[in-house]
């Protein structure tokens, strides 16, 4: 059973075909890298997988289940989590409250209007555990507005990991990071256990190459090359459309 399977997925915005007959099969535990130049349709593909955009045709299967018509808000409950390329966090809250919201999202407790979150020690402990995994536990109570860009990237990942996903979609987790920050995030990603399948988008091929087992190259919404790391790097088409020389 594949962890994530995409079959003949198509999406057009007016006359612009951003995703054309994309097929993608990711095995459980696999580390998949999706690369492609600007405007290749990488983030659109993520939005189609998470259901934030509705595909014109084609299907998406998560762990063997057809989720094409499942609303996007239900998909985290089925084991899918994502991060955003443009950091999308709750800027007025503390780091730990951000992660708490991620935990509550999958719990029936999220509808409770008559209990106080800060007294729910079990919940707060779990949030701290998730922050431990990305190495941010020591600054858990810091307001998000007082954190660095790299720390925010790790909060994004902590929120996704807190939901115990089966399939984790990382959208350019290294974008805009300094070399030190990038190393911290790389360590965080590398430490994610193998029961989590990871699909990562990365614009900059160099930083993510050692992470990937298989690589898919997108160009103008089409899959151009797919294969192991060595195959894709060696392919002349990769050099042509992506590396540009």
């Amino acid at each position: 059973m594949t962890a994530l399977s995409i079959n003949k997925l198509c999406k057009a915005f007016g006359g612009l075909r951003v995703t054309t007959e994309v097929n993608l099969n990711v095995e459980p535990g696999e580390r998949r890298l999706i690369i492609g130049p600007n405007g290749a349709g990488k983030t659109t593909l993520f939005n189609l997988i998470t259901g934030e955009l509705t595909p014109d045709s084609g299907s998406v299967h998560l762990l063997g289940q057809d989720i094409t018509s499942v609303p996007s808000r239900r998909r985290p409950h089925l084991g899918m989590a994502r991060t955003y390329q443009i950091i999308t966090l709750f800027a007025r809250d503390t780091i730990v409250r951000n992660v708490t919201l991620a935990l509550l999202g999958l719990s029936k407790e999220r509808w409770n209007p008559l209990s106080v979150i800060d007294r729910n020690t079990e919940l707060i402990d779990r949030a701290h555990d998730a922050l431990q995994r990305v190495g941010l536990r020591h600054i858990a109570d810091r307001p998000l507005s007082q954190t660095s860009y790299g720390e925010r990237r790790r909060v994004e990942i902590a929120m996704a990991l807190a939901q115990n996903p089966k399939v984790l979609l990382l959208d350019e987790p290294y974008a805009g990071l300094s070399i030190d920050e990038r190393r911290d995030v790389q360590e965080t990603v590398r430490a994610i256990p193998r029961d989590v399948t990871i699909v990562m988008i990365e614009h900059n091929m160099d930083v993510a190459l050692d992470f990937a087992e298989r690589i898919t190259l997108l160009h103008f919404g089409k899959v151009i090359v797919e294969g192991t790391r060595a195959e894709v790097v060696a392919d002349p088409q990769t050099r042509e459309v992506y590396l540009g020389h």
Partner: protein
Amino acid sequence: MNGRTLALAVAFVALGTLPYWMPGIYYINVSSQVLFYAIFALGLNILVGYGGLVSLGHAGLFGITAYAAAYLLSMGLGHTTAIIGALIVSLGCTAVFAALALRATGIGFIMITLALGQIIWGLAYRWISLTGGDNGINVKTRPAPFGYDLGGANTFYYSTLVVFLVAVVVVAIFVRSPFGAALKGTRDQPRRMNALGYHVWAIRFWACLLSGLLTAVAGILFVYYTQFISPQTTSLTASAEVLLMVIAGGPATLLGPIVGAALVVVVKNVVSGYIERWNFLLGAIFVAIVILMPEGLVPGTVRLWRQGWRALGRRRSIVIAGSAEPKP
């Protein structure tokens, strides 16, 4: 005992003994008004402050409840039945309003709530067989639960105070609850909330209902206070007034709407006795608030207070450092 507990205790004692130190019945009645308008503003603040949804139709909901209670009473029904009936009618209307208005957010939400509020106002004026049109509906008596007659200013004040305190506690718990956090989340990052597994629309819908419930409670207190309801209560001016209470006091704070309600009610009722152009004064106050503390009176005062202390602390440390310097 820290400053916060002390301030709470002082406020509690002041409110509890208010009829004994207020100079007259008139002022006790004004205090009752402050309290039920504060409940109204707390209800609107759930949407405006915590949900990021600005409503300009809340006076319509407030009016529907008041009209429903007055109409049921004029049919000869008892107070309990009238109150429960009014709450049911009001929540039903809130649900319909929310379902219509939540098709949009931002400006769209404001315009739909504005339109719905105006429809209620129009119906109140023109559906004369039901509302009495311009003449409104009179409410002959106030209730007397367990023999405690609410006819007097003091007894009405105390019962309003009890309802007010319950409302404050409910809202205080709500904003710290998982659901309250979810509502604030949909205000700040609706897309992320959806991706985290939350049903953004449903969260907003339930928030509308809670806001409507508090509005309805305030509406019932209002109709028993004035013992009269007319279309003016449901007008756009009334919606704008309660919105100004929230914005002036400080949206997304617990104390803000209460302070805002006190400000508006006092200027409208008390200051208007001394200054003929009290509307001008109220306008000037709002302009001053917007310029000096755009975040609202309560957060603004806290900010100025902290800045003041910090400045004072800095001056002191400079003085101390200066005196510690060895003299040449």
